[in-house]
């Protein structure tokens, strides 16, 4: 499992996402060297970046041994139908991206809260990587795989997968896991 920054991203966020993904999924998390800002995906009319185009670009960088590649960007993402997306992933495909723009309190004119923004980023990372593994939205509102269209929803959910999603991850990644590596109830690795 790989993560890559797209342009400038604060180190504390990247480190937290790395730790969070490693804690939840039974795969090692590695960093790819930083990728450039997604200027190619910029839509001047909307002043936002097309997540579909970012994903297309990310696919070309997925290493051969990767289960998935998660891009992290400061830029605000959109798809044509929606005014914004917090992130997007290929369902059962290798590429995913999260945007930090709307996870920050200052986006809404509020007092910055670094800790909160980082916690939100981890949940969104777990969520989008879950899609790459093949998980769809979870009905358990406390599970990070539940649908979140606003930061309010993101804050309401936890960072660890629910029991059902853990089982699903096990099932969907059985062919990829190394012998003896399993997910426990908390989503941490045990050998």
């Amino acid at each position, binding site marked *: 499992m790989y993560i890559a920054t797209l342009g400038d991203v604060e180190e504390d966020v990247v480190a937290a996402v790395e730790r969070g993904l490693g804690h939840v999924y039974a795969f090692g998390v590695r960093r790819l060297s930083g990728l450039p800002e997604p200027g190619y995906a910029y839509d001047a009319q909307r002043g936002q970046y097309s997540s*579909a185009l970012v994903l297309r670009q990310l696919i070309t960088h997925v290493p051969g041994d990767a289960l998935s590649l998660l891009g992290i960007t400061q830029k605000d993402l959109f798809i044509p139908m929606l005014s914004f997306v917090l992130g997007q992933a290929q369902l059962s495909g290798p590429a995913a991206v999260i945007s930090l723009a709307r996870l920050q309190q200052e986006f809404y004119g509020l007092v910055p809260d670094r800790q909160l923004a980082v916690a939100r980023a981890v949940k969104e990372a777990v969520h989008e990587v879950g899609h790459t593994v093949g998980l769809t939205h979870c009905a358990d509102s406390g599970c990070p795989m539940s649908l979140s*269209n606003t930061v309010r929803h993101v804050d309401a959910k936890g960072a660890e997968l629910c029991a059902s999603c853990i089982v699903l991850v096990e099932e969907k990644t059985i062919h990829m896991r190394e012998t003896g590596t399993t997910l426990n109830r908390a989503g941490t690795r045990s050998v």
Partner: protein
Amino acid sequence: MTHWHIMVVDDEEVMRESLAAWLREDGYNVDTAVSGNEAIEKARTYDYAIYFVDLKMPGGIDGIETMMEIRKLHPEASIIIVTAYATVDTAITAMKEGAQEYIVKPCNPEEISLLVSRIIKVKNLQRENSILRKKLTKQYSFHDILSKSPKMGKIFELVKDIAALRSTVLIQGESGTGKELIARAIHFSGDRAAKPFVGVSCAALPETLLESELFGHEKGSFTGASSQRKGKFEMADGGTLFLDEIGDISSKLQMDLLRVLQERRFYRVGGAEEIEVDVRVIAAANVDLDRAVREGKFRDDLYYRLNVISIKIPPLRERREDIPILAHSFVERLSHELGRKVNGISEGALRILLDHEWPGNVRELENAIERAIVTCKTTMLTDEDVAFLVPVADQGKASWNVPSNITLEEAERHIITATVQRTHGNIKEAASILGIDRSTLYDRLKKYNVQRE
């Protein structure tokens, strides 16, 4: 998460694929089409629950035309028209042509999530409703007869009890109440089920022909009898002979029939050989045979011979609780037979059906539903579709002769008394018929000293 399928129709690849991907994350099965024509082709082979259709798709048919074609194939599909440039005209056209929603992109993600989940929720309820209705129909179904009425329930029990016997049965009931269905239920519930069930309508044929029809004839027995022919009694050997409209047969035939019922033997017309048969006779009459006997129009000995087991089917107006279940069942069957996509009855239409007196009983209801389906312009029968059924209350208004020398108060007292009697003391129903609230009705009852029962 869900078995519902969604179709995204857009000529722009990024738009199409990004929305499809977003919906797939929610667990929906999503298919895409690059043009209206491709969407219509796919809709021919698959039934999608929701269609997201872009309004403007250059080089082919536009979103509205696509929607109209899809609605012809799947009237129940929910179609969401998507546009980047909304105008009042296009919005009105889209909604008029049956779009479920008209949305302007980009939308708030929460809005789309709520819209899709709301539509799916309704579809789940509709599906659940259809399953429950089928279960209910099965529960109240007895050999193709639908009823939840306790009176009919007793008849079904009796049918089960007598099915294995050979005793003659007399079924009486108004025209259209389903006498032949009960006769068939008796036949097919018993051990004669594998043998023939032969029906004869006694009113349909003149006396001589009916005699030949029942008992058969020998070659040359009358002009036109060019060959020997078996009668219905012989055809029904081992099984059941259903004699419908028995009240209409001549006195000579009444006598012949009495002999067969007593002896189980008869001669073909013009024949010398006595034929013996094992036939169970079920007779039916839509006239009051008891009265016909008293008036000397029907032989009393034949009546007693036929009336070994008596079944009286109540008219539909005495089992109004069956009207919804029967109506829904007819809609389901007839819309399929007529090739129409009608799948429900509105509350208003059902109210009219419930209020109608149904002199022609279940047959009239079936015919009324057929007529309504033929003229129905949507997927649901509305009150307009059944407006040809004049409510009971209106029938009365046309022929009511207002008595002379009567005060307004007396008239009011008469009307209130009659209505309360008609509803068997049901104040809620009586108040509804009279168009007043219950407290007003209680005041009037007190004022005129009218007893509820």
